């Protein structure tokens, strides 16, 4: 007896859409059990993290503010992921976006005018794009794997942030704390809803997600992204060059992450601090996949992941859950999503060994070449041929 994965003829559409929900539910259940076994109030933790924030109007503001950067970054990443360009460097692009905006803010410290904030935002976007252009150049010129180059640049970005905070950009009046001055009123985001925490980054994230949805569905550029992701060779045949797609994907990812960065810097932070990177760039990867790379799904998924941040904070004080619990929940969500996706495309079956044939066959044989895989290939080739 052996358990093997057998490809399904056609994955069910309903299950493809249900997989994220199943992943969330499985995360809740497993999380509750695991934390109970660790001696915490597991079910209380689930309630505190995933339910309580939804019941308080004040918490909702927090949720939206946390969801906005996640949704922005994930929307940008989803463009690249659809085209099989794996930009893991959103965290660094987010930091560079924040730094570029901060640079303008510090330079314009003693100036006034409505032009300052828009200029900060434009520079933030350009900063994210500039950081993303490094993996793009390496990929298109030297065929360097963008996963590695973009990921490693995250650490470079963090060191750059630390250097600027401790050196050139340190607040001269700041008692030697490694942080910049506070931004002026001209340099901070206005609120979308007066009297709340909800800044204009929230409606911007919503509007951009919907715009991207339209562009992916209807524009020739969106078509290019989809074709490259589904069939790279057909994309070349259709006249879409691979380098241009790589650039497009990384620039979109960089621009959105950079925008999220500058909006965070000019919004909730209103200055630049070493604690600026909070892992949004990584969490957004989970958001993108949990949202099925679809902008509307991403908006929903961003809310779910924002819950883990907001609720996780509360649970630390009310239940004494460790801070790492947030990471555990986020990781479980990705893990269960990937598992559910596998089971949507494959079926787990028990395989009997036929009685006639000798059972222990070459264990070291690569699975691609084994006769059973041949049979599966034949099966997958389609039945109506």
């Amino acid at each position: 007896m052996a358990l093997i994965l057998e490809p399904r003829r056609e994955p069910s559409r309903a299950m493809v859409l249900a997989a994220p929900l199943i992943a969330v539910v499985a995360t809740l259940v497993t999380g509750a059990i695991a934390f109970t076994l660790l001696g915490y109030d597991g079910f209380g933790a689930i309630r505190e993290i995933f339910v309580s924030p939804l019941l308080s109007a004040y918490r909702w503001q927090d949720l939206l503010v946390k969801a906005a950067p996640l949704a922005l970054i994930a929307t940008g990443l989803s463009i690249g992921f659809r085209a099989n360009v794996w930009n893991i460097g959103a965290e660094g692009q987010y930091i560079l976006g924040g730094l570029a905006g901060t640079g303008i803010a510090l330079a314009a410290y003693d100036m006034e005018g409505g032009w300052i904030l828009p200029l900060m935002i434009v520079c933030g976007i350009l900063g994210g794009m500039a950081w993303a252009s490094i993996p793009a150049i390496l990929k298109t010129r030297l065929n360097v794997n963008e996963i590695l180059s973009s990921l490693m640049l995250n650490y470079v970005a963090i060191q750059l942030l630390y250097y600027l905070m401790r050196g050139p950009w340190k607040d001269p009046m700041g008692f030697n704390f490694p942080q910049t001055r506070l931004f002026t009123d001209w340099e901070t985001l206005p609120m979308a809803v007066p009297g709340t925490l909800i800044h204009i980054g929230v409606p911007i994230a919503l509007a951009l997600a919907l715009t991207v949805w339209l562009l992916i569905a209807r524009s020739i550029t969106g078509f290019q992204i989809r074709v490259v992701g589904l069939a790279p060779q057909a994309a070349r045949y259709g006249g879409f060059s691979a380098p241009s797609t790589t650039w497009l994907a990384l620039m979109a990812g960089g621009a959105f992450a950079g925008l999220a960065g500058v909006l965070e810097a000019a919004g909730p932070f209103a200055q630049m601090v070493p604690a600026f990177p909070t892992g949004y760039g990584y969490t957004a990867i989970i958001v993108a996949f949990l949202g099925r790379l679809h902008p509307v799904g991403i908006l929903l998924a961003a809310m779910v992941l924002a819950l883990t941040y907001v609720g996780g904070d509360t649970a630390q004080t009310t239940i004494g859950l460790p801070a790492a619990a947030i990471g555990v929940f986020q990781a479980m969500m990705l893990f269960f999503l990937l598992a559910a996706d596998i089971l949507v495309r494959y079926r787990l079956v028990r395989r009997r060994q036929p009685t006639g044939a000798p059972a222990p066959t070459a264990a070291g044989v690569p699975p691609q070449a084994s006769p059973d895989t041949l049979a599966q290939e034949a099966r997958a080739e389609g039945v109506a041929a």
Partner: protein
Amino acid sequence: MPPRLELQGITKRFPGVTANESVSFSVAPGEIHALLGENGAGKSTLVKIIYGVQRADEGTILWDGAPVSIGSPREARALGIGMVFQHFSLFEAMTVLENIALGMDNPPPRRELEAKVRQVLDTYHLALDPHRDVHTLSVGERQRIEIVRALLQRPKLLIMDEPTSVLTPQEVEQLFETLRQLAREGCSILYISHKLHEIKALCESATILRAGKVVETCDPREHSTRAMAEMMIGGSLKDVKRKSGGEFGPVRLAVDGLSAPGEPPFGTSLKEISFEVRAGEILGIAGVAGNGQNELLSVLSGERHHGVTGSIAIDGVPSLALGVSARRSRGLAAVPEERNGHAAVPGMSLTDNAVLSARRRKKLTVGGLIRLGAARDFARSVISGFSVKATGPAAFAGSLSGGNLQKYIMGREIMQTPAVLVVSQPTWGVDAGAAAFIRQAMVDLAAAGGAILVVSQDLDELLELSDRIAVINEGRLSRSLPVGSVSVEEIGLLMGGVHGEPATAEAA
């Protein structure tokens, strides 16, 4: 003596289709039996049932007279059924021997295996070096690996699925010799093909399938190929009608001194290729697969630019530096050999697949946005113009059968009325009726002033379609010869690499 294999009332249903309906036939020991039918007639399903890949819903399989249940390919092999698939599963970077060992259920130690392999090679006069790396081998040699793999199991029934589609005429003859020798030794052979003259030359009996049912069991030696083709399609076969004459217009595609490096690691580089195609003319390029055909096609279509030298002119305008889209705007349409994932995106609708290559010439975009209505209309006109069997423009390309998808792709390109059509394997895997339709459409395009370049491994097709034929071998193109003046043997020799100069050691 009971038949080696007998099928009784085999029925297999899939959601929406009945692939096989009470199919019965038998194969005697030592008999070479043909299984004939159009694409979609149910041949593949039937073979998969015999080889244990799928299970029949109804019916019985008798093996040497006793009913058997074949649950997996492993069980089929244990009974003595061997199969050589149409598409090989080989690791290019490994040797022949390693590949054979990988495909076996329980490979013996290397030395013992090598002795066994050499014995099989000697017995059946198969030329193959067990220590060569697979990527250095011709397609014919690769097929021999699969045959050896099957023969090592000492099969009593060998299933060959479309084995000759990639072989030169000489290689086909060698293969037939091997099969005849096997049959003389008592091994039954189930031979699947749609090449009727081969079946006449090789087989003693034939079962003809149409729409999942057996329509006829006959002796192929007693029927004309035309009669058998008509049994297959269940109607009379249309001949491709050509305009007589041979008056061609101006040169529309001129290629001079075209060279390009092969795709690493195993591609063939193109060497100094020159030819011209005039308006109204069809130039055929014959050759064994892997001799630079795919490279030539991608260089002509503009998909490959790196390291390409020489010149390409479309209607007299130098076009070497142009990309795919610019060449399409100039009037060059191309259809690569691979349909799924190259000429079409299986996971997209037919409408989207129309946008893929027709968006410029059919103006399917405006201001960077897709004109969905226009794209849908164009897709619909291709579907009706080329009688594509599909539920509509929203159907996924991957849901169409191979032949229907090919009709759609050819229709999509031809209905853009290109100045130059470059096409590889226009009817590969397509049934006789659809093939005749596609060929007629190409002839009509030429008659309307288009210039057509056809790359194909099917010599019969080239002889029927082309005005002139050239042969590509190891990236070099022979000079082209008028179709009336060449014989199949001459072309076959050119395909095998015999140019009147000493043949390379490659020819085996």
